Structure formats: structure tokens, C-alpha cells
């Protein structure tokens, strides 16, 4: 599967994406977690003690005269980049970071070039892609999530979150946009929250994730949901989301 999580900053995208990746990996699938947030949050949700792990500079060299600005270094291709530079995390999820804004600008651009080349050329028969886009609409607008054929929009039952979600839904209609968009209602506290999200977005809500005090406490401690409350309602909801998405892909494979 190739999914990307989008939504307003703070909606819980990374927390759900990281848990999704690990739940899928525990089912024996090879999972590549793709973090294109320049202020990465996915490591916390994966339970991975790393912050700044961009693909190193020397993975990229200047392109030939008259050609592209950069190319991957000789001997490197997407498979070897994943092998060498994607960080191995809990449940054997591999984590590939887009580059962190703390670095020097040209270093970041090189790391981001290598990241994009890897994502473009990754063997999707082998790897399931689980991506986490930064909050807001800038990257989504520029097509950064275009590796995914399924976008998962995480929305909270607040006017601001739904306002952002509506903008993202408009963007998902672009040519490069995903074929499927699923809505996840997160931090739900009231009985009518999911219905409210659904009517405001004019789409059904696929999965409802209740507000969880345990997950919020874990967030403050920097502990991943699967490590802080593995059998709680949050993880259960993410399992249901994995089931749902796996069902979509299974259905596609069986189609003539």
C-alpha cells in the first residue's frame, strides 16, 4: 500500500501515521515510513530515538553538463539508499527522513533530492509506503504526497481543523492527487463529533479515534502510543484503519 497522512498541524497525523506503520509492520509487512516534515515528528510516534537523520550529502553529486543539477552518487539507487540510510525502528519499520531544517540549506536540498529520488524509484512490490506530510497545505499543494494513491486526512472536530481539511480536500482533486481519500476523525469527545466532521467535509468518516488521556500523557513524555497504551482505544482505532486500508488494496488486487 502507498498512503500519506495529511491534515492541519497538531491534528495528530504523525501520531496516527507512526502507529499505523508499526501495526502494519507487526503483520509481517515491509514498511517504509516517509517523513517529509522539515520539523520531523514521526520518530516520536514510531518510538524511534532519532531526531536529525537526513540522507547524507555524499549520496548526491552534481549532474552532468547540461543535465539535472544533481544525480544520485554512482552505485546508489533507491534500494541501496533505503538499505543504508533508512533508520531501522521498532517492529522493523524503516524510517526515511526528508531532512531537518536545522542543517545547512544546501545540505538539506541535497538530502531532499535524494529523498525524492528514493521515493520515486522505491520498489513498491516490496515496500509499503506510509508517509507523513507536514501540517498545512504547502507541501500538499506542491505535490509532495504524490507517491501515495491513498491520502488519509486527519481532522479534529474543530472549526479550524475542518477549515484546513476542506482546503486539503480541494487540493486532493488535482491531477497528481490520490485516487482515494479517507477521513479520520481524531480527538473525538462528543457523540456528534464524527457526524459534524462528515457533514462539513461532505464525505463519510472512515474511522473515529476517541480523545485519549493515555496518548496525551505519552505525548508529553515522548513515548509512542504502541509503547504507552498498546491495547487502548487509540491503538484499536488505528488497527481498524489498517484493516480498512488493507481491505481496499486487497480488493484492487483481486479486481480483474
Amino acid at each position, binding site marked *: 500500500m502507498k498512503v500519506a497522512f495529511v491534515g*492541519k*498541524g*497538531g*491534528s495528530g497525523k504523525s501520531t496516527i501515521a507512526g502507529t499505523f506503520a508499526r501495526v502494519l509492520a507487526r503483520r509481517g509487512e515491509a514498511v517504509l515510513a516517509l517523513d517529509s516534515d522539515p*520539523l520531523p515528528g514521526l520518530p516520536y510516534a514510531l518510538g524511534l530515538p532519532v531526531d536529525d537523520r537526513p540522507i547524507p550529502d555524499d549520496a548526491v553529486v552534481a549532474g552532468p553538463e547540461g543535465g539535472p543539477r544533481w544525480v544520485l552518487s554512482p552505485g546508489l539507487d533507491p534500494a541501496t539508499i533505503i538499505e543504508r540510510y533508512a533508520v531501522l525502528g521498532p517492529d522493523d519499520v524503516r524510517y526515511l527522513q526528508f531532512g531537518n531544517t536545522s542543517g545547512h540549506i544546501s545540505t538539506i536540498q541535497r538530502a531532499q533530492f535524494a529523498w525524492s529520488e528514493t521515493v520515486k524509484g522505491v520498489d513498491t512490490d516490496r515496500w509499503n509506503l506510509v508517509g507523513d506530510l507536514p*501540517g*498545512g*497545505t*504547502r507541501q500538499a*499543494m506542491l505535490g509532495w504526497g504524490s507517491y501515495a494513491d491513498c491520502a488519509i486526512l486527519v481532522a479534529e472536530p474543530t*472549526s*479550524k481543523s475542518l*477549515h*484546513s481539511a*476542506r*482546503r486539503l480536500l480541494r487540493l486532493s482533486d488535482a491531477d497528481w492527487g490520490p485516487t482515494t481519500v479517507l477521513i479520520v476523525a481524531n480527538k473525538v469527545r462528543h457523540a456528534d463529533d464524527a457526524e459534524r466532521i462528515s457533514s462539513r467535509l461532505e464525505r463519510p468518516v472512515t474511522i473515529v479515534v476517541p480523545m485519549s488521556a493515555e496518548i496525551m500523557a505519552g505525548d508529553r513524555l515522548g513515548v509512542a502510543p504502541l509503547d504507552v497504551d498498546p491495547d487502548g482505544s487509540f491503538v484499536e482505532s488505528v488497527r481498524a484503519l489498517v484493516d480498512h486500508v488493507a481491505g481496499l488494496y486487497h480488493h484492487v488486487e483481486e479486481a480483474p
Partner: protein
Amino acid sequence: MKIAVVGKGGAGKTTTSAVLARSLARQGREVVALDCDTNPNLGISLGVGDLETERLVSLREQLDDGDVEHAADWDEILDRFGTDGPDGVRLGVITRIENPDPG
């Protein structure tokens, strides 16, 4: 006096901006609140409502798409891409503030 409010999405940046802007206005000061987020929703927290916030954003999108001629100065920007909010705060949606000449 110019104040920038920053932070990770969801931290409370927009609520902070809105309370600050309206509290200053209640003290009798003239306040301009600028929404510089690519995902503008300061209007909601200021209290101008969902619909008005969405109207301002689509005006701004037309400008970014080149459908509307660029405004000449701040007053004009605020008149055309802004609205008067509660307590007299003037709100402007300025998605690309770091770029002096968008487009």
C-alpha cells in the same frame, strides 16, 4: 510595534494571536491582525466566523492565482483582503508575507 507569533501547528498559536489582538484593541489601541499562515484560520479565532474566514481565504487564493491585480499598499490590502473583526481589530489574510512581491 510589530509582534510575530510562531509555533508548531496545534500548539495554540492562532488562539494566542487572537486573544492578544483583541485584548490590545480593547485597551483602545489600533490593531492589525495579519494571518500569514498558508492555512489561514485566524479569522475563526478572532470571532469573524467560519464563512467570512473562508471568503477571505478564497479572495487571497484568487490573488495568488493572478486573478486579481495586486494591491498597492497595506491599507488597500486590508480593505480588499481584510475585514473588520470584533473590538475593531482589522484582519488581513496575507499568506505570503515573506515575499514582498508575490507572483
